[in-house]
């Protein structure tokens, strides 16, 4: 690690945005020993005599580093798709400073030693913070509980079967009951393995294309079941990635009833719809699937109204071998760390959602849900932040992605809003060229 300047670093001329306090001011941020030491309109610069240590943000937004609650990484077992190191580098380019690593690896992260492996590897190789989530069921088999207490003590931030939905309601009930005892967060996916066995959103488009459909009910039924189980057990529950308008309503009703539930949405489901699949483009084959245009709008409204709490990248690197196949045979998933902020900013530019609200869904909300102190610009907080120009136009070039895989649905997409610098613990880990 580079030696830190004695007086820390002073980020000046920034539009400081903090979703926790609602603060939105033009000023400076002083960083000392990896933490934010002061925030103010014109902080004293006497100690930085020769200008060394002063970073001019040129009016760009300085916001908390993004916290991405759903990232799939191939290590261990699928290093050809992504390693902890490459995912970390991709994260820096996207302004993500903390990410939750899903346990869908080979072997599945269902054991204390594997949680420790992730921690150790991340500390050694990743420029950003990686929080491991552990499996809810052993081997993600959906039948036996993992050692949740031990895993939590080892540092697992949440429990999830990742891409899988536990179909055994008794197992889910017990896991939720047990997790409530130890105050652990359960993050669930919703796709009934039988009803949801199709390959794209069910409807006229799937019919026309001759592809098996995934009905909306394949998501709504397990979500409704889980809401009943949450009511029964009092568990702390997060619905990872929702995709239908009814799901937003189901979640909102559970919140109204006072349940400890939150919901997330993948940025792809906020920006894209099934129409974008076009001529069997497998980079648009995702899980949850891209739904109708109306669903996309409902998800955006969910973010606006607060029915949905957070936006995730649902980063899921896939190799050429699993994507360059006929649509029905191709794997689900898309990379998303590097385009997360830019894609989410479409909500600000096109759907007129307040910039602060978009940032909250990307930073504070996931941080709070995970019980972490990150996701804030506050004195004493860790100096993890992203500096970005919310209006800068750019085009995504998939050959320049830092991720080991290039399966992005935003190939050649035009974006407005670009990460300029990513700072982790006061150290710049990414700087945009030019």
């Amino acid at each position: 690690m580079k030696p830190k300047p004695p007086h820390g670093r002073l980020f000046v001329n920034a539009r400081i945005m903090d979703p926790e306090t609602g603060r939105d001011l033009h000023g400076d941020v002083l960083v000392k020993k990896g933490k934010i030491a002061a925030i103010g309109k014109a902080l004293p610069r006497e100690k930085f005599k020769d200008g060394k240590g002063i970073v001019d943000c040129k009016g760009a937004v300085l916001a908390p580093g993004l916290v991405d609650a759903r990232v799939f990484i191939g290590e261990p077992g699928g290093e050809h798709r992504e390693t902890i190191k490459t995912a970390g580098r991709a994260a820096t380019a996207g302004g993500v400073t903390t990410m939750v690593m899903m346990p869908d690896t080979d072997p599945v992260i269902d054991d204390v030693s594997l949680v420790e492996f992730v921690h150790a590897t991340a500390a050694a190789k990743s420029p950003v913070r990686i929080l491991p989530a552990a499996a809810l069921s052993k081997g993600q088999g959906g039948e036996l509980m993992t050692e949740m207490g031990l895993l939590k003590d080892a540092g697992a931030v949440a429990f999830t079967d990742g891409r899988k939905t536990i179909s055994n309601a008794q197992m889910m009930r017990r896991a939720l009951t047990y997790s409530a005892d130890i105050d652990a967060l359960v993050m669930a996916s919703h796709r009934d393995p039988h009803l949801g066995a199709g390959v794209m959103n069910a409807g006229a488009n799937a019919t026309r294309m001759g592809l098996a459909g995934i009905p909306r009910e394949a998501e709504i039924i397990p979500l409704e079941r889980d809401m009943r189980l949450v009511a029964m057990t009092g568990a702390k529950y997060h619905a990872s990635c929702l995709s239908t308008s009814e799901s937003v309503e189901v979640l909102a009703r559970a919140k109204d009833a006072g349940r400890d539930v939150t919901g997330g949405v993948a940025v792809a489901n906020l920006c894209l719809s099934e129409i974008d699949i076009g001529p069997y483009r497998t980079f648009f084959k995702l899980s949850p699937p891209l739904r109708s245009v109306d669903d996309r709008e409902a998800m955006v409204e969910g973010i606006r109204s607060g029915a949905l709490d957070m936006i995730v990248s649902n980063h899921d690197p896939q190799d050429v071998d699993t994507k360059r196949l006929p649509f029905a045979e191709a794997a689900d998933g898309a990379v998303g760390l590097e385009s997360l902020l830019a894609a989410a900013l479409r909500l600000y530019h096109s759907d007129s959602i307040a910039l602060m609200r978009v940032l909250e869904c990307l930073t504070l909300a996931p941080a709070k849900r995970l019980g972490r102190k990150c996701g804030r610009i506050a004195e004493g907080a860790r100096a993890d932040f992203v500096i970005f120009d919310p209006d800068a136009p750019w085009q995504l070039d998939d050959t320049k992605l830092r991720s080991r895989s290039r399966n992005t649905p935003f190939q050649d997409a035009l974006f407005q809003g670009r990460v300029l610098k990513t700072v982790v613990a006061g150290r710049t880990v990414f700087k945009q060229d030019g």
Partner: protein
Amino acid sequence: MVEVSKRSDKHRNTLPGRTLINLFYENSTRTSSSFEIAGKRLGMDVVNMTVATSSVKKGETLLDTAATLNAMNPDLLVMRHNAAGAAALLAQKVGCAVINAGDGAHEHPTQALLDALTIRRKKGAIHGLTVAICGDIAHSRVARSNIHMLNALGAQVRVIGPSTLCPSSIEELGVTVFRSMEKGLPGCDVVMMLRLQTERMAGAFIPSAREFYRYYGLNEKRVKLAKKDAIVMHPGPMNRGVEIASTIADGVQSVIVEQVEMGVAVRMAVMEMLAEAREATTV
């Protein structure tokens, strides 16, 4: 083209020296032989590749196979594959023309063209006709291609079948859905039966073939519900006694054998036009 096939010398050497590869990932007798005969009548060198004898069984991917075949410089590739969109994917990766001979439950364009030719020869025109497509719509690429073709040519299209075999929102393709033969057949000029595709039925779609025949099989009584001069079609291969009674399949209203005959002519026409168009653009 139809006349060519009726002569004793069936050669129409318009495409000599061109290479046609038939790539069949699914078993097919009539379609692959139809393309083969069509190709040979045009004077092409025809190579047939089927899954059983190719390296596909050894785990080679579709695109690797495509690259390999492409390197042999064929002029036309005919492909049947069990995945929707496979032909489109192949076409992106090879330099020659690709003819879709059926991709999953998506499309089977030459079948629709040969059906159109058959109907036109029997009925004079397609515009204004009422056509019922009956049975297993969900798994049928023939149904989808015919729905597009018939709508484009101005026919009224009905689909008749149990709900489990009619995909969601099929109405949006421009058809009227009926749940019983008794309601859907009256007034029809053309009754197009489909094969019950038991091999694609991953789950339980119907209780049994016997029950399906009882309610949706085309028998003598049901044929009489359609117009007196209605024709009966089937893309083959037929499941006699499942979707169609033998007496109907072999009866006077049946044009099933003629469909096969038209298949060769239509495929010759498609290949000739495609080759001509490509050669005109590359010169």
